[in-house]
C-alpha cells in the first residue's frame, strides 16, 4: 500500500511544468495502474475544491484522496515550502480559509509565515510536512522547531525527505519523516509510484494515518525498516484447531472472552520461541510473590564473613577449642635436685648443665619476618620477569633498572636472613645441648634431673597465643556490616522500594527476633551463648579461671556448630522506602514484579494479564510507556489482556482476538489502524476492531472515549 503526500494536479505558478496539469479521467486511469492507495493533492498556494471532489469521487473505490496545499513560507528571511494536509472532514473550512488568504494574491506572489499558517489551519486537524534538508527550498531546524512549538500535536509535523534513503535516515534518528512524488509529469507517474513509500500497515482513513503517526516515528516502511510479521503455526488444542498467527516485533495483544484459550496460546508461543532458541518465559501475574522473589526469609541466602572483608577466624576458633593448659615446673623437682649431693666428678665438671636455656622464639620470629620479606621480593622479581605486557608498556630500560634495585634488596635480605638463621640455629643447638646433658647426667648418675626451666615461658606463651586468638576473634565480631540495599521498583509518589539485607555478627547482645542465622546448620542459641562466652574470655586470660571458662564455652549445647565467624552471622531482610521499613501491598507487589519483568532486557516478552491487581493509573502511566518503548526498539511483546488501557493505549500493530460460539473457537487478526479483525476460516465475517474491543475489554468505552477523536468514536 503506497502513499503519496505530495502531488500537483495543476500548474499554479509560472515555474510549474505544464505536465502537472491532469484531468480527472486521466488521473483515474493512472492511479488505477499503481499501488497508491492514499494521495494528497498539494498544489502550490492553491486549492481547487471542485477538482478535489471530482477526483475523490472518481477514485473512491481504489484510492483515498486528501486535500492539501503546498505553501510558500518565509521564515527568518528564508523561503521554504510547507505542505498542509487537513483532515478531509474539514475540507470545506479549509477551502474557505485558503480562499480568504489568497484574496488579492496569486500563487506566484503569495507568501505566509509559520505563525500565520498554524493559526489559519491548525483547527482543521492537519498534518504539516516541511521540506527538509535535501528537499529544497527547505525549512531549517529552527523553523521546524518553531512549527512544533505552535501546533497542538507535534506528532503531526513531518519532515519531507527527497527520497526513501533520506527518509530512512531521518526516521532512524527519531524524526517523523515521509516523502512524496512532487510529480512533475503525470505520464511518468506509474513508474515514479513504484518508489513511493509503503505504509507499515493498511490505513483506511486520515484518522488512522494520524494514529499510526502517534504510534511511532517509523510510520512508513523504509529500507532501514526491520519491523515485519513472523507467521506462527501453532498446534495448541490439537489438529482440529491449528492456529495461524502473525507475530510482529511490536506489541501483539491477545484478547477475547474468558475460556477461549488465550493463556494456552501464550504458552504455546513461548514454547515455539524457546524451541527455536529464543529463551523466554510467560510472566503470569499473581503467580509470584514479591517476598518470595526477593527471598525475604533467606531460604537461598548465604554469606561468608569474608564477603564483608571480615576474617572468618576459623583457625583461631579451632585452636581455642583444642588449647590445653601448659604446666609449670614443679618446685619439688628443684628441691629433689638440690637435695642430693653431686658426687659424680665428671658431672660436677660439666658446667653446661648449669646454663640457662636461651630464648629461641624471638630469633625465630625475626628470622620468619626477614625470610617472608625475602620471599615476597623474589616473587615480585619473578612477576616482573614473566610479565611481557609490563615490559612492553613500561619499557625494557625501566624494567632493567627496577630489577637491579630489587635484586640488590633481595640480596641484602638473603644475607640478613642467613645471619638470622645462623643465630636461631645456634640458640636451638645450645638449648638442645643443655637438655641432652641434663637428661644424660641424670640417667648416668641416677641423680634427679636438673630443672632447666621454671615453665613460665611456655605457660606465658600459651596464654599470649590465646590472647592473640581472642583479640582477632573479638575484633571480627565487633565489626559492623553495612546493610546491602537492592533496588526493587518504583512505587510512584511513595518512592523507590528497596530490599534491604541487614547482616550482623552475633556479639552476645543481639536479641532481635527478626534476625536469623545466615548458616542453615546453626541455631540462634549457641550463636548467642558462644559469642557471649568469647566476649568474656579476655577477662580471664591472665587468671587461673581461663581454662574453666574455655571448658564452659565448649560445653554450650551445639557450640561445635560455631566454627567460624560466618557461623555467627545473622541476617534480617525486609523492604524499605527511604530507609524506612515498608511492607508493600499485594497491588504494589504486582506493580513491582511486572515492572521488573518489563525492565529485563529480552527479545520476547510474554505477559499474561498484566492488569491483575494493578490500578489504571499505573498501567497507563508506567506500564504502557514501557511497552511502547520496547515496541519501538523492535522487541516482541505478546500480551494476554482484558484491559483496554493496554489493548488500546499501546496501539498494537497486532490484535489477536479469540472468540467462540456453538460451532467452535475462532482466531481473528487485525489492528487499530485497519479497524478490522479478520478470521482465516472461510465464512467468518470480518469484525470491527473498535466495536469488539469496546465490547470485550474492561474499560473499553473509557479508553475509546478518551481517544474518541482519533478513533472516530463519537
Amino acid at each position: 500500500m503506497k502513499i503519496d503526500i505530495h502531488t500537483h494536479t495543476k500548474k499554479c505558478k509560472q515555474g510549474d511544468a505544464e505536465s502537472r496539469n491532469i484531468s480527472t479521467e486521466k488521473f483515474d486511469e493512472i492511479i488505477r495502474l499503481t499501488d497508491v492507495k492514499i494521495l494528497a493533492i498539494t498544489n502550490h498556494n492553491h486549492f481547487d475544491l471542485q477538482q478535489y471532489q471530482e477526483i475523490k469521487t472518481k477514485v473512491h473505490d481504489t484510492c483515498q484522496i486528501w486535500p492539501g496545499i503546498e505553501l510558500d513560507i518565509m521564515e527568518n528571511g528564508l523561503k521554504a515550502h510547507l505542505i498542509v494536509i487537513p483532515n478531509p472532514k474539514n475540507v470545506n473550512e479549509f477551502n474557505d480559509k485558503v480562499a480568504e488568504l489568497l484574496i488579492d494574491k496569486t500563487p506566484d506572489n503569495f507568501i505566509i509565515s509559520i505563525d500565520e499558517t498554524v493559526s489559519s489551519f491548525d483547527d482543521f486537524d492537519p498534518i504539516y510536512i516541511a521540506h527538509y534538508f535535501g528537499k529544497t527550498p527547505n525549512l531549517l531546524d529552527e523553523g521546524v522547531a518553531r512549527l512544533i512549538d505552535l501546533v497542538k500535536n507535534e506528532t503531526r509535523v513531518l519532515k519531507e525527505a527527497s527520497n526513501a534513503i533520506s527518509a530512512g535516515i531521518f526516521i532512524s534518528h527519531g524524526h517523523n519523516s515521509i516523502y512524496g512524488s512532487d510529480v512533475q509529469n503525470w505520464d511518468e507517474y506509474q513508474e515514479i509510484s513504484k518508489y513511493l513509500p509503503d505504509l507499515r500497515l493498511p490505513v483506511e482513513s486520515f484518522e488512522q494515518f494520524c494514529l499510526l503517526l502517534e504510534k511511532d516515528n517509523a510510520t512508513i516502511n523504509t529500507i532501514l525498516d526491520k519491523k515485519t510479521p513472523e507467521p506462527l503455526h501453532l498446534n495448541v488444542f490439537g489438529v482440529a484447531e491449528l492456529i495461524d498467527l502473525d507475530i510482529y516485533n511490536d506489541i501483539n495483544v491477545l484478547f477475547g472472552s474468558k475460556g477461549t484459550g488465550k493463556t494456552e496460546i501464550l504458552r504455546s508461543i513461548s514454547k515455539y520461541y524457546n524451541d527455536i532458541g529464543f529463551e523466554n518465559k510467560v510472566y503470569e501475574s499473581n503467580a509470584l510473590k514479591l517476598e518470595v522473589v526477593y527471598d525475604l526469609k533467606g531460604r537461598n541466602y548465604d554469606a561468608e564473613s569474608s564477603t564483608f572483608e571480615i576474617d572468618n577466624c576459623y583457625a583461631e576458633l579451632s585452636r581455642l577449642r583444642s588449647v590445653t593448659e601448659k604446666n609449670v615446673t614443679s618446685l619439688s623437682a628443684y628441691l629433689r635436685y638440690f637435695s642430693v649431693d653431686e658426687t659424680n666428678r665428671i658431672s660436677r665438671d660439666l658446667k653446661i648443665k648449669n646454663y640457662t636455656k636461651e630464648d629461641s622464639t624471638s630469633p625465630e620470629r625475626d628470622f620468619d619476618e626477614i625470610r617472608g620479606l625475602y620471599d615476597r621480593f623474589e616473587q615480585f622479581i619473578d612477576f616482573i620477569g614473566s610479565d611481557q605486557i609490563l615490559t612492553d608498556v613500561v619499557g625494557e630500560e625501566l624494567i632493567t633498572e627496577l630489577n637491579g634495585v630489587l635484586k640488590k634488596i633481595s640480596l641484602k635480605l638473603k644475607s640478613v636472613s642467613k645471619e638470622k638463621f645462623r643465630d636461631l640455629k645456634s640458640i636451638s643447638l645450645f638449648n638442645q645441648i643443655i637438655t641432652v646433658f641434663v637428661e644424660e647426667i641424670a640417667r648416668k648418675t641416677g641423680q634427679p634431673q636438673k630443672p632447666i626451666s621454671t615453665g613460665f615461658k611456655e605457660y606465658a606463651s600459651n596464654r599470649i597465643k590465646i590472647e592473640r586468638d581472642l583479640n582477632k576473634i573479638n575484633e571480627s565480631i565487633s565489626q559492623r556490616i553495612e546493610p546491602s540495599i537492592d533496588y526493587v521498583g518504583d512505587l510512584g509518589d511513595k518512592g523507590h522500594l528497596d530490599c534491604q539485607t541487614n547482616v550482623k555478627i552475633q556479639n552476645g547482645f543481639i536479641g532481635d527476633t527478626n534476625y536469623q542465622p545466615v548458616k542453615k546448620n546453626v541455631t540462634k542459641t549457641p550463636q548467642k551463648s558462644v559469642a557471649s562466652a568469647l566476649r568474656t574470655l579476655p577477662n580471664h586470660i591472665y587468671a587461673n579461671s581461663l581454662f574453666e571458662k574455655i571448658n564452659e564455652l565448649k560445653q554450650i549445647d551445639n557450640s561445635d556448630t560455631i566454627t567460624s565467624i560466618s557461623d555467627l552471622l545473622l541476617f534480617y531482610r525486609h523492604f524499605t522506602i527511604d530507609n524506612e521499613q515498608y511492607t508493600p501491598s499485594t497491588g504494589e507487589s504486582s506493580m513491582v514484579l511486572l515492572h521488573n519483568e518489563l525492565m529485563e532486557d529480552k527479545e520476547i516478552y510474554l505477559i499474561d494479564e498484566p492488569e491483575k491487581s494493578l490500578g489504571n493509573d499505573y498501567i497507563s502511566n508506567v506500564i504502557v510507556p514501557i511497552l511502547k518503548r520496547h515496541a519501538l526498539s523492535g522487541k516482541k511483546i505478546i500480551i494476554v489482556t482484558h484491559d483496554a488501557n493496554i489493548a488500546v493505549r499501546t496501539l498494537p500493530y497486532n490484535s489477536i482476538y479469540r472468540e467462540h460460539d456453538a460451532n467452535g473457537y475462532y482466531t481473528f487478526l487485525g489492528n487499530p489502524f485497519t479497524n478490522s479483525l479478520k478470521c482465516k476460516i472461510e465464512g467468518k465475517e470480518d469484525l470491527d476492531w473498535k466495536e469488539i474491543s469496546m465490547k470485550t475489554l474492561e474499560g473499553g468505552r473509557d479508553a475509546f472515549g478518551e481517544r474518541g477523536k482519533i478513533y472516530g468514536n463519537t
Partner: protein
Amino acid sequence: MPSEKEEKYMETHKATINRLEDKTSLILNIGEGEVLEIELTEDKPNEVKRVFNKLISFLKKGSFEFELEDEDEKEDLYFHICTDYVGQLNAELLSIYQELEDYQLLEKNE
C-alpha cells in the same frame, strides 16, 4: 642476653627467701607494694600459675627482672634453689617481654 634497649628500660625488683618453721618461700617484690610468693617446700602449681599470671600482667607494663637478696646470707638448699629458679625466671621474663612486644600486646602507658 638483654639488648641494650631492653637493659635501658629494664627494672630490677628484689627477690628474697622467707624461711619460716613450717615453710620456706621465694618472695618476689614486684613493686607497687605487690608481693608474690612461691612456696618452695610444697608443690602448689595453681599458686605458681597465679604468680605467673601476675608476672605476665606486670610484664605488659614494662620489662623487669629479679635480683635475689638473701638477708639470712645462708647458702643453704633454698638459696641454691632460688638462685637457679630466679636465674631461669629472669631469662624467661625477658623472652616473654619480647614476645609481648613483638605481638604489640604491651600496655601503652609510656
